[in-house]
Every structure is written in C-alpha cells, then in structure tokens.
C-alpha cells in the first residue's frame, strides 16, 4: 500500500502501457478477451486517480517542491544532461488527470464494436492514454515533450487506419500540423535548457529563475503557437474538423475530450510560469483570439451539414471561452477557464458518443437526413437534449458555471470583448436548438421509423457523463476547489511579475 502511495503518479501513467503489452500477447481472434482486458487496464488508473483525488491537499499553492506540487516522484534519469524523471501534480493538472482517467474507460466501452485489427487498436489506444497521462503529470520539460510526442503517434495511426473515407488526408494533416507545433516547442525547450544557469530541464527551476532567458517575446510566441495549434486557436484550427470527421467515435472523443485541453494546459503550465511578464503583455492578444474562437466557431458550426463537424466546430467555440478565461488574470476568469476545460471535456465526450451512436445505426451523419426520431428513441433523445443543452450553457448544468465565471472574470478587464463573447451564447443556442429540431423534432423520417434505442454498453458510457454534467452544475465544489489555490498563485504571479 505504501508503494502505491509513493509511486501513484508513475503507476497511473505506466499501467496502460504495461497493460498494452498484455493486449499484444493475446491471440488475434479473441477479440472479446482483448476488449475486456483493455477495459480493466483503463479502470485501474481511474481507481488510482480517485485515490489521488482523495489524497490531494487543496490548500497549498505555488509551483515548487515544497508548496503546491504534490505526489512528487523525482529520480535522476540522464545524469549528464541533468534530465530527471520528475512527476508531480498540482491544482492545474489534477482536474485534467481526473478527466483523462474518466474518459479513457468510457472510450474503451465506446469502441466495443471495432472489428478491424482489434489488437492493434487497443494497443495504440492504451499507448495514447499513457502519453496523455504522462503529459499532464510530467514536470520535467524533456519528459513532458516525450509524452507529448508519445501521445501524437498512436493518434495518427488510429485516425489513419480506423478512420472514415478521407482518413489519410485527415491523419496526415493532423500529424503534420501538431508536429510543426511540437517542433517549435522543442526549440524553446532547448533554448531554455541552454539559457538556464545550471543547465536544467526541471520546470520548477526554470520557473524560479526565468529572468535569465533572453528574447522572451520570441520564446513566448513560439510556445504560444505550438500550443495554439493544439487548442486549436483561430488560424490554426482547420485540422480539427477534418480529423474529427474522419476519426472513429472513441478517438474523436479522446481528441476533443482531452487532447484539446493539452494546448491550454501547456500555455498555463509553461507560458504562465516561465514567461509571466510576456503573458501579462500578451493578455489582450490572447483575449481577442479567444473571442474570435467563440464567435467564429459558433458561426461555422451553424453552417455545417455534417453533425460531427458541427460538434467539432462547437468545441472550437467552447475552447474560445477557456482562452478568454485564462487571458483575464482574475480569479473568477482563470478558475472559469480551467473549469471550462474540465466541463468541455465531459460535454464534448458526451456529444461525440451520441454522434457515434447515431452513426452506427444510420451510417451517415447528415443532420437533415434525420427527422422526428424523438418518440422512436426516447432515452437517446433525452441524453441528446441533455448534452446539447449543456453545450449551449443552460444554467443548472456544468458549462453554464464555467462560462458565467469566464464572462464575470473577463468583463472586469475587457468590457467590449466580453460583451461580444456573450453574443456567442446566442449563436450557440441557435445552432444547438436548430440541430436538435432538425434531428429529433418535426415530422418522422420514415426510414428511421424502427431505429433501435441505445444499448446497454452505450448507456453505460453516456449516463455517467450525464450525471457528472448535472451534478457539477448544481454542486461544482468537487472540481472547483481543486484549482483555487493554484489559480490564485498563478494570478498574483502574473500580476506581481507584471513589468
């Protein structure tokens, strides 16, 4: 028991990879055995994450060994480059670890009917989970970058092989886009390594003496662009709709649910702590981009004919709220931003699962292709209504709290920008209701008269998410309290460091 406690984070990160080796060992034709073992392998990190959640101390703030960062595991890894295996979790990464640990088993369940290359699929999937988990908990820059790349590769194959018709194009576009981003980040990592006095990759050290780094604007921009591609922020977002449309359901859930948060997490973890003065200067720039994201994403979503593309654009719009939130440097704004990251993860996961369910049955995703199927599939439509209303930020559900916090926080700094962002809520409401109306309400479309309602596995994936959406809407403390100390630390780090 003591072993588990002291090595909790590395266990959570590496169990999926070890598990994936088992999956490889199983004979090819025993698909069910593979599926069940994959599920068990992802359930273990979820349980460990809950242990982590329980043991997490919600009072310490800061970004150093002593304060703020908990469950530290630090071993020297490559001595002469001073790279050490340094893992830790703080208020910022705790919700993300929870989200990742929660979404992965649900995705395994969602990919229950993958037929082709089952073994390969689940192996890559577990590898992907390790990549994501590692990226969230790594506090050594080099280790972070390794996990960042480990996360990228399986994603390319999963989209490229198990995807839809134009999968190669989408996979390549996704891969190159993100790779360009990560190369830029690598450059900055190396620059930081060389610029730091006792050459180190340790993020906490870099953050502590970040005054050493020269040409800070370029570094900040490089990092920002590298992470912006992942978020995605306005000019770099065109890979998202293609990647989503072509990716299989479970993968687009992971892509939207967790990978998008990687970008904003990166900005918060690195840009904020290592170049606080630059971040302060560039705040308005980020806020403007955030608002563009909101309005642009919402308007594009309204136009889409393909349901999955619509949801993809809607996640661009929701991520815009996150950017606006973190650019506001107020407690409410930052808390709202990070909470929105968590909420959006849950809501889009639910939306994509719903799209997957209807795609499995009707084999097409044209919104206008359906009509009036609510009475035919009552359970499905109830969950769909819940998900879409959460997406449009209905009060009483979780997204409203984060969006309200973001708006409250951002209004103090950018009055007109936030007003424009608030109009986003109207457009979001418009396209969400319009989609619901075209699919569920109106005259019944005959060829879907006998559409089967959701099955047991699909229900097991959707209902927990639904419960989270509602409970967090009513009582947000479980997740919100996690981030408060870190947020206040980040905020006054930016405010005081403001040159």
């Amino acid at each position, binding site marked *: 028991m003591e072993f588990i406690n002291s090595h909790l984070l590395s266990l959570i990160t590496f169990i999926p990879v070890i598990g994936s080796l088992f999956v490889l060992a199983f004979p090819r034709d025993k698909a069910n055995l593979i599926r069940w073992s994959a599920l068990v392998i992802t359930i273990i990190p979820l349980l460990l994450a809950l242990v982590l959640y329980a043991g997490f101390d919600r009072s310490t703030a800061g970004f150093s060994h002593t304060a703020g960062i908990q469950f530290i595991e630090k071993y020297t890894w490559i001595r002469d480059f001073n790279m050490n295996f340094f893992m830790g979790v703080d208020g910022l990464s705790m919700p993300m670890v929870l989200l990742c640990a929660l979404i992965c088993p649900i995705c395994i369940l969602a990919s229950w009917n993958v037929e082709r290359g089952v073994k390969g699929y689940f192996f890559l999937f577990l590898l992907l989970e390790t990549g994501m988990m590692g990226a969230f908990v790594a506090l050594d820059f080099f280790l972070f970058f390794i996990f960042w790349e480990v996360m990228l590769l399986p994603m390319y194959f999963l989209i490229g092989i198990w995807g839809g018709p134009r999968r190669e194009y989408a996979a390549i*576009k996704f891969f190159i886009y993100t790779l360009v981003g990560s190369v830029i980040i690598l450059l900055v990592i190396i620059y930081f390594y060389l610029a730091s006095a006792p050459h180190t990759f340790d993020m906490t050290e870099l953050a502590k003496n970040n005054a050493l780094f020269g040409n800070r604007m370029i570094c900040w921009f490089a990092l920002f662009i590298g992470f912006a591609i992942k978020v995605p922020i306005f*000019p770099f*977002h*065109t*890979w998202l709709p293609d990647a989503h449309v072509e990716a299989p359901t479970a993968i687009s859930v992971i892509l939207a649910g967790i990978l998008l948060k990687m970008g904003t997490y990166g900005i918060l973890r690195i840009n904020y702590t290592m170049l606080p003065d630059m971040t302060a200067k560039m705040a308005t720039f980020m806020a403007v981009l955030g608002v563009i994201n909101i309005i*642009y994403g919402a*308007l*594009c979503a*309204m*136009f*889409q004919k393909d349901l999955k593309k619509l949801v993809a654009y809607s996640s661009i719009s929701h991520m815009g709220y996150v950017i606006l939130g973190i650019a506001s440097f*107020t*407690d*409410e704004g930052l*808390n*709202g931003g990070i909470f929105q990251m968590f909420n959006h993860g849950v809501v889009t996961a639910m939306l994509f699962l719903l799209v997957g369910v209807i795609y499995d049955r009707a084999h097409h995703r044209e919104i206008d292709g359906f009509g*009036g199927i*609510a*009475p035919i599939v*009552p359970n499905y439509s109830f969950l769909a209504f819940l998900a879409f*209303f959460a997406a449009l930020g*209905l*009060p*009483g559900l979780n997204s*409203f*709290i984060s969006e*309200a*916090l973001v*708006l*409250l*926080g951002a*209004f*103090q700094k950018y*009055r007109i920008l*936030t*007003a424009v962002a*608030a*109009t986003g*809520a*109207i*457009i979001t*409401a*418009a396209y969400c*209701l*319009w989609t619901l*109306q075209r699919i*569920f*309400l*109106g*005259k*019944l479309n005959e060829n879907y008269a006998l559409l089967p309602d959701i099955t047991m596995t699909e229900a097991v994936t959707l209902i927990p998410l639904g419960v989270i959406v509602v409970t967090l809407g*009513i*009582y*947000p*403390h479980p997740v*919100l309290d996690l981030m*408060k100390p870190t947020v*206040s630390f980040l905020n006054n780090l930016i405010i005081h460091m403001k040159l």
Partner: protein
Amino acid sequence: MSMKTFIEQYGFMILLSPLLGSAITGLAGRRIQKKYGARPIGLIACGSVLVSFIIALAAFAAVAGAREGEKTIICIVFNWLSVGDLRADVSFLFDPLSSVMILIVTGIGFLIHAYSTEYMKGDSGYYRYFSYLNLFIFSMLLLVLGENLLLMFIGWEGVGLCSYLLISFWFSEKANAIAGNKAFIVNRVGDFGFILGILALYSLLKDKIFGGGLVVPVAPSLLSFRFLAENVHLINNIDIFGVSAATVICLCLFVGATGKSAQIPLYVWLPDAMAGPTPVSALIHAATMVTAGIYMIGRLNFLFSMSGTSLNVIATIGAATALFAATVGCVQNDIKKVLAYSTVSQLGYMFLGMGVTAYSSGIFHLVTHAFFKACLFLCAGSIILGMHHEQDIRWMGGLKRYMPKTFLTFMIATLAISGVPPFSGFFSKDEILWQAWKTGHQGLWLVGFMTTGMTSFYMTRLVMVTFYGENRLHLRPSTDDRHDHDDHHRDGVKESPSSVTMPLVILAFFSGVAGFIGVPAALGGGNHFEHFLMPVFGHHAVAHHDPMEYVLMFASVAASLGGIGAGVFLYRIRPELPDIIVSKIKMVHRIVYNKYFVDEIYAFLFVSGTMLMTRVFASFDRYVIDLFVDLTAHVLRFKSYISGAIDRVIVDGLVNGVAESFLFSGSQLRKIQTGRIQAYVMVLLFLVVLGVSLVVILKGEV
C-alpha cells in the same frame, strides 16, 4: 417552532417538491403511464404543486405576520459558488414581494395542473407534459425566490427552457418545434442583455468594494439582493462609455426583461408560443413566466430608481407595446392569438406602471392580470376542447347556449380585463393610469387611456363573435385534414367536464374579488396591497385626495364602457358592418392583421443575416484558411516536386547521362565485338601500332 424558523429550515421544500415531482414523472413516467394509466401521474404532479402551495401560504403568513423590521426570511441551503471575490449561495429570500409571487405561481399553477389533467387526457406524452410543467413551477419558484442575481438567472433560463419544451410539446408538428426554437432563441437574446447587466454590476461593485479598500464583512455575496440594496449607491457616479453606469446596467437588465416579458423589440415569440397546449399558454404565457421581467424590475427597484432615463425608457416602451399589441389584437381571428396580444398589451401596462416608479401598482396589476388572463385562457381551452380543437373564432358563435359555465366565467374575466369597476382589472389598471398621470407622464397616460378602450373593444368582439349569434361551425371549409371526422360532431358542442370548469370558476371568482385587496385610498380602501409591499418598495408620499384622481377614474371607466358598446354594436347589432369597414380600409387591415410584418422583417434581418454570416464564415474557413493550409501543402508539395524535379532532371540527369553515355558508347563498342576473331586481331594490331607511334612521338626517337 415558529413559522419563521420553519421557513428558514424547510423553505427550500417549496422548490424541492415540484423538482421531485418532475423527476419522478419525467424519468419513471413512461413506465407508470404504461402500467397504471394517466391518473397516478396527474396525482403526483398536482400533489407536488399543492405541497409547494401550502408552504407558500405558510411563507406568506410568516412574512405577513412578521414584525415591521424583519419582513424578509432567508433560507440558506448550501454555498454554491465561492470563487475569488464572487460568493453565491443557493439560498431563498422570502419577503413580501416574493411571497406574493410564489402565491400566484403555486396557486394558479395548481389550478392549471388540475385543469390539464383533464385537458391533456389521452395524449401519449401525458407524463412528459406534467414533468415539464412541474419543472416549470420549480424554475419559476427558483426565479422568484432566488436570493442573488445568479440564482435568479438560473431560474430565468430554466423557465425559458420549460417554455421551449412545452411550446414544442407536440413536436411532431414542425411548426410547433420552430415556435419553440424561436421562443428560446429570442429569450436567449434577452438573457444576453441580462448577463451583460449582471457582469457590469458585478465588476463595478467589485472594483468599488475591493478596489476602494472599504472595510467589508467576511466575503460578501456581491450579487445578493440584500447586499445590493445597501451598496448599490456606490456605483452612482461611475460612467461607462459616457453614460451613467446605473442607466447602462438598468437598460441591459431591461433588455432581458423585454425578452422574457415580450415587450416591443423581443415580443415576437409570444404569439407563436400559442402553438403549445392551452393550459401552458395560460400558466406560462399569461400568468407567471411573462411576469418575470416585471418581478425583476420590482426586485431591483432600488437600482432602477437610481437612473431616471432607464425608467422613462421602460415606461415609454411599456405604453407603446400596450397600444401596438392592442391594435393587432383587434383584428386577430385565432382566439389564442387575441389573448396573446392582449397579454402583451397588459404587460405593457405593467411596465408602464414600473416605469413611472409605481412599482406596487405594477405588481398589483400583475396579480390581477394573472387571475383574469389565466381564466380567459382556460376558458379558451375549454372552448377549444368543446369545439374539437378549433381555434378560429370565425367558425364559432352561439356557444352561450352550449357552454353556459364557460360563458359566464369568460364574461367575468372579460369585464375584469376591460376595467369595469367592481372587477379587479379596474382597480389595478386605474392605479397605474393615475400614477402615470400623477408623476407627470401625461402623454403616457393618454396612450394608456386609449389602450383601455381598445382592450375592452377587442375583448367584447371576442365575446360577441364566439358566444353570441348562431353557430358557424358548419361553414368552416373542411380543407384542413385534422378534422375529417367532425361531421357527426357538428352540433355536439357540449360543456367541458367539471374538472375543467372548476378551476375556471375559482379563477373567475378571484378575478372578480382580487381588486379589493388594493382599493386606492381615493375610494376609501386601505390599499392593503401597496401597504403590504411597502418594505420592498419603500414609502411613497401618501397621496392626498387629489380631485384629479376621480376625474381620471371616470374617464377610464367611460373609455372601457365605450369600448364595450362599440364591440356590442359592431358585432352584435350590425354584424355585417365589420366586413364593410374592413373592405374600406383593406390595406390598413391587411398590415395590422399581419402583425405589421414584424416577424417577416426580423426573419429577413436577423435570421437570414446570421445564416449569411455563417455561410461566409464557414466558406471562409473552408476556402481561405484551408486554402492557406492547402496552399502551404501545395507549395510544399510543389517545392518537393521542384526539388524532386531538380533531383530527377539534374542530379539524376547527370548520373543517367553518364550511365547513358556508357550505355551508348557500350552499344557502339558492342558493334566492335562483332564476334569475328580477325576483327579483334585487327584492332589489337592497330592499337599496337598506335601505342608504338605514341611512344615514339612522345619520347623523340626510340
């Protein structure tokens, strides 16, 4: 356990029971309905509302009974949000204003629940209907009882959601679904203004309080009403964009109110909301939800009274809406549309009342309107039931004989709304008109006065056309397919069963009696209503008996009687006259009938506008950005093609060239390899000769 502590501990039950009711009927409803039929669901729903009605009564009694100073009771449940300087608790405020509101919401709500158990009998979505209705009661109570702006906003949008769900209840009809959408989106536009107001209020207060270093008790809940009441004066002298902050905030909040209470710019959704079942229209679009805007202004009266300009704006828009809606109401043929426009018009009255700082008269009119408008709608519902879902009054007529009870209650409510003295309408409407005149808004009074006339006119037209004359059901063109089976029913118009008429009677009674709680001093009444709301709205100078009040009172009574007379004359004595008038002013009639084409203008401006924008953005996204992306991809590919070509042409060229030259020379040399031995010898010797001669030449002589 005094009533007060009971409320403090268990006040939240008033909300919990409808929530539970809606959850049970919603989630388990389908199975219950399948197994035990519709009755149990009706019972659960009505029961839950009854429970909350009883608690509301208890709360009302507690508040009324409380001593002068502590008229407000707070029931804190848990801390909802405490982030940075924002602290918002889930807590409920019972004070005179909200206790009156919850009485109406739960009282009328219960009656309408009972009514709809009968009205919706046989509908497959029975359980779904009651679940939504209970959810509506819950959100309305949340709106009314919310202790801070955020909680009120949750209720605000919650009611919007329920109205969306209930309007598009019969969603198999595409038109209903679109109407539902329209309602929600227009509400959402209003909520956009509401949110802006909250944001502005919050940020200004936060700067003032935390920025200014004021000593403040433990982290105050900035948005709670009690805190606002005391500290809102702080933002008095701040300007936003050159306009005083209070005005900006009030106007934003008023935008929210117009969205929710269907005033001029954002009223378009209410007439279409009639697509929902009639009891829904009665409860939501007449009695409770639409009054949310007025309640909000009443709740934040201290804020609104800080900015005169916003009050004027509210008053003028209220009056304008009243007049505008009344004109449109006069020409509508669908019974529910007439009542819808009359609601918009009456709401205009309330806003006029609030605008002239006569908050209590506005709320009073809200209360009386709730009774008689709900009664009117429910009567319309029973008529529709009786006429087998026929809503067009042109095919009705002579229902007096067939539905006496409905006719009687309809008559009482009509008299109430037209402002005929003994009935409630007169007292509340007259109070507003008098306050308008008294506070110097003579112009607005005139508009209000004219509207009273028109109101009584269109109500009488409605009564005359539907209840008097002969039955014209048979004249109806049986084009629409809904009623192909109606031939043998034609004369079978019968009175609705008792469970329908019972609520009608109660409501008619209240719409008759309700006026007496607020009899103005001028008529010797104690104006208990205004007195009751005093702690919330502050003290008004007790009006001395200004003779002008009586003059105005007679004038308004005369106007309403005139309206009734005109109505009787046109539609009873000379029924052919209206057609002649219409033919004369054809153009005007057509414009007014089509609601001044406002819907079409909105559709063109906003809907297709946004559609165009989405098309532009999406294509921008697909072509421009992807163009760049693909361009870079093409450029890269082109570059790689070029470098590929370079490789191929030059580098390979060289290599191939060399290879080719070898090949070429090889092939030439090959010819030498003729296979003939002598050729070899010849070449050999030739080379020997060549070699020797070279050596000789190079080395001089041998």
